[in-house]
């Protein structure tokens, strides 16, 4: 008896019971419906999001009556007119877009060697170290990390103290555009590395050996072999970084100190400071539109990169 129990362990028995239960609840004649059923939670979630978008679209067409603080009953395009004509919103939009592009370029430049080293190093200890160093910031959270930078970069912060030791007077390192971009790059780096690493893993190391035996030094091997083959990873990582930084809220709010608002901060202000739901909704929809167009243009120019699945991947 003992013997047979060892041959048929408890976990198997549990699975048997579960399978029998599943068969009773979901007879095999329903099998074809199973994949659709599993799709259901995702469809519901996206569906709710679409409902929300419709609600926002509705709000965006109503203006705020400043005497009653009620939304107007009739539809008007006044909010769109304000959003597109007022200089303040143009400045915020320009700051966000330019910032997102700069952050993406800088992040990809930093992430590429990191991902390459992580993929190619023969030392598993170094690979593990790089991976842990990558994941550690994830556990800390964006807001806490931004506060960390406040401490490090503040007027009495570590950096200024270190500069003071070599005779440099304290500098204002915070609450300006570079500080926001710096914070965003630091925040985006792990995402970019994690998107790039699989693409680099897919490039056989033998191709680099081949290039070198065919007469290419490392610069030309990189230029003619590694870079073109890493393009799907660069496009995928770039798309993720550009959308995340375009819509980021916490870093511009904290490291920008209110003077470096991105679009998300302007939306927040409309909803929660001036309580102008209409204008906030308008700005939100415009952000969705700009982001979608940006991603669409990249898709058309470069393909979807690693975000494209299956045969489409080139």
């Amino acid at each position, binding site marked *: 008896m003992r013997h047979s129990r060892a041959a048929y362990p408890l976990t198997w028995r549990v699975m048997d019971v579960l399978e029998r239960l599943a068969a009773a609840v979901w007879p095999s004649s329903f099998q074809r419906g199973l994949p659709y059923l599993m799709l259901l939670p995702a469809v519901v979630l996206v569906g709710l999001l679409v409902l929300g978008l419709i609600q926002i679209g509705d709000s965006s067409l109503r203006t705020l009556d400043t005497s009653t603080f009620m939304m107007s009953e009739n539809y008007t395009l006044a909010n769109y007119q304000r959003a597109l004509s007022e200089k303040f919103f143009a400045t915020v939009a320009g700051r966000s877009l330019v910032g997102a592009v700069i952050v993406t370029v800088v992040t990809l430049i930093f992430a590429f060697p990191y991902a390459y080293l992580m993929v190619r190093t023969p030392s598993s200890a170094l690979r593990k170290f790089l991976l842990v160093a990558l994941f550690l910031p994830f556990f800390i959270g964006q807001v806490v990390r931004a506060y960390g930078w406040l401490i490090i970069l503040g007027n009495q912060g570590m950096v200024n103290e270190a500069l003071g030791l070599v005779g440099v007077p304290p500098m204002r390192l915070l609450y300006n555009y570079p500080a926001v971009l710096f914070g965003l790059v630091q925040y985006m780096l792990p995402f970019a590395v994690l998107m790039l690493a699989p693409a680099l893993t897919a490039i056989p190391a*033998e191709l680099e*050996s*081949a290039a070198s*035996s*065919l*007469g290419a030094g490392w610069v030309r091997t990189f230029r003619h072999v590694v870079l073109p083959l890493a393009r799907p990873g660069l496009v995928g990582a770039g798309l993720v970084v550009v959308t995340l930084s375009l819509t980021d809220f916490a870093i511009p709010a904290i490291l920008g100190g209110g003077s470096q608002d991105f679009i998300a901060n302007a939306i927040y202000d409309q909803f929660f400071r001036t309580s102008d739901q209409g204008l906030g909704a308008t700005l939100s929809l415009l952000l969705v539109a700009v982001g979608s167009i940006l991603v669409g243009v990249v898709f058309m120019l470069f393909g979807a990169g690693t975000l494209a699945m299956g045969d489409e991947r080139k």
Partner: protein
Amino acid sequence: MGIVSTDLHKAGAIAVSVKDVGMVFGNVHAVRSASFDLPKGKFLTILGPSGSGKTTLLRMIAGFDKPTSGEIFINGQPVSAVPPHKRAIGMVFQKLALFPHMTAAENVAFPLKMRRHDARTIGEKVERYLELVRLGGYGGRRINELSGGQQQRVAIARALVFEPDLLLLDEPLAALDRKLREEMQLEFRRIQRELGVTTINVTHDQREALVVSDEVIVMDGGEIQQKAQPVHAYRSPANAFVANFIGVTNFIDGKVSAISGSTVSVESNGQVLAGVVAADGAPLVDGSACSGAVRAEQIRIASARTALEGLETIVEGQVTDSIFEGERMVYEVTVPALGGAILRVFDHDPVSHLQFGPGENVRLGWNAKDMHVFKK
């Protein structure tokens, strides 16, 4: 051989010279004190099982790994300090390593561009080499649009187009099915003869080594076991490892009971068998433990002793297994007189269709000159 190669060296006709080369990874000796000279224009195959150090040796010649001891000379020049892209070596890789983002022609043009050849001559040269590998007109195809054999040919053209001093083949045929592999072996041979390029091929396929090479080096445990022409390595293996690795060989263990000149008598289980001292093997003395090696195809099989007239050694046995392989029968025969040893016998007899089934009593016979006796 020794004298010939030094004469050639003086004439500058040695393409590759490997001197006491060793490679240590951690505490593993991947290659131990390997030395050989390869004359220009020859086709050398380094043959060995996996882990024998053959690929490590090739990678050192290519420049991907640096020897921990010894030196490699290419055209008389030491190359340890020369990086791979500065060596004039064409290499066909195990997985071909074709660039998937380029067409066949772009792949072949790559080394010419990297070596800054005159752009006006590149197109014509690429076409010429694609024709050499019988891929004329396929230049515009992407790599994934080509069959396995065609990809092989692109890889060969790419490795040869810049007219390297040396062509290295790192088991590029290992992944192909048998028919295609045999076709490509002959193709390698044809192209090598046509261009006269010095070639070093690495493989674990003994048939390939015999078919394509002018010279064979057999490696095991990081050491060179024998360097010889294919026929010589097959007919006169230097030791039991070589005899076992190339071809199918039966070993009969015993001890030397008498020795005179090249003939030797081996005593095994009370039987005395006549054989010859392995020509390139370690010297034998009276009474030393030894092993007699007989090739499976050099043993005749028959039901009656009369059919084996003229053979010097005849033993009785019983068939334990018989396998039909098409062009030949393979028998496994238990021989009680040799302590129940099981001998494998190839019988190529397309005319009589004679077959023995399991359990049948048979007689086996071979000539004394076909039993090579090695020191154990």
